[in-house]
């Protein structure tokens, strides 16, 4: 893409537009699946990114630390409007949910030991645990079927949950081993 094309592309999207579109995703994405909403917005609804650009940014979002949906907003915002585009998209995405959790959080903090609230939260916590297990299973996708991946998943889990090492230590041990196993042209 030439710099002229880039200018044309940048000229098309206003910061306000970026902010409002991501604000809408932030407000309606009850129950997760934000990546899916972002995909619809960026590729289908507004055609701000090509499918290939989207996949590239998604890969970075998943590889880098941070929440995938937020990282994707950072990258798409930067792609469309540079630094302030990132800020606008990210703020839009997190503002509605932040207000939501704050309002409920204040109520929770003030009624910490309310017996009825605790009974509801007990069931909700059990459901949330099932949801987390389902998401982990889905994100794992093909990895559950590959021996090499399974070994790394099991070792990471064991170091973290059974040996109870701290996260930086787990990453320091597992990342070099895993990168070695997945090095380019590895035969395994």
């Amino acid at each position, binding site marked *: 893409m030439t710099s002229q094309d880039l200018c044309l592309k940048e000229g098309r999207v206003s910061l306000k537009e970026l902010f409002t579109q991501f604000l809408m995703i932030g407000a309606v994405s009850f129950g997760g699946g934000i990546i899916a909403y972002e995909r619809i917005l960026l590729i289908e609804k507004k055609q701000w990114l090509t499918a290939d650009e989207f996949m590239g940014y998604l890969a970075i979002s998943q*590889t880098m630390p941070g*929440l*995938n949906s937020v*990282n994707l907003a950072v990258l798409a915002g930067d792609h469309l409007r540079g630094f302030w585009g990132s800020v606008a998209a990210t703020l839009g995405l997190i503002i509605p949910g932040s207000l939501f959790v704050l309002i409920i959080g204040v109520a929770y903090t003030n009624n910490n030991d309310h017996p009825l609230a605790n009974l509801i939260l007990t*069931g*909700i916590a*059990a459901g949330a645990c*099932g949801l987390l297990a389902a998401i982990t299973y889905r994100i794992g996708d093909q990895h559950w079927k590959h021996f090499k991946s399974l070994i790394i998943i099991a070792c990471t889990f064991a170091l973290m*949950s059974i040996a109870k090492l701290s996260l930086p230590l787990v990453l320091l041990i597992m990342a070099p081993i895993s990168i070695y196993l997945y090095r380019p042209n590895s035969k395994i």
Partner: protein
Amino acid sequence: MNLLIQLALSFGLLSILAVGGGTAVLPEMQTLLAHQFDIGHTQFVHIYSIGQVAPGPNMLMVLIIGFQVAGLLGALVVLLAFFIPSSVLCFYAGRLWNYFGENPWRRSIQNALEPISIGLMASGVYAVAKASIISPITLLLALVTLFLILRTKINPVYIILASGLIGFIYLRFF
């Protein structure tokens, strides 16, 4: 003031450790909160659950933790500390993308990090399960939720709210 700095440092560290999304740092967050801010497992799981019914990114519940530890200012500090470091890293990674886009090592590193982040997520499930599955009914609710989410297209929020309602009715009246 001391508490705010402690919050900023803790969540800033969690932010850059959160490879593979927020759920990867759940076990670490739980340990850290118990040690530094006296937030127990049950309380943590309750706060986590509130986050699951909220719209937007699923880790916004960190704001509630900030609020509990140090009020509104605490929530703001946690928000900035948890989202800025990782977002800045990602921003520059995106700009580097053009240089390394087709390098075979990039693909290798991504392939290598994926199973690690899945392992960390599994640890997150384990951590949440230990605190939330405390009786036969909670086990049943978790399993039914897991099944429904994997096998149907029902919005997870409805399933979780229903789980809360059923748990409430069961625990209150039986």
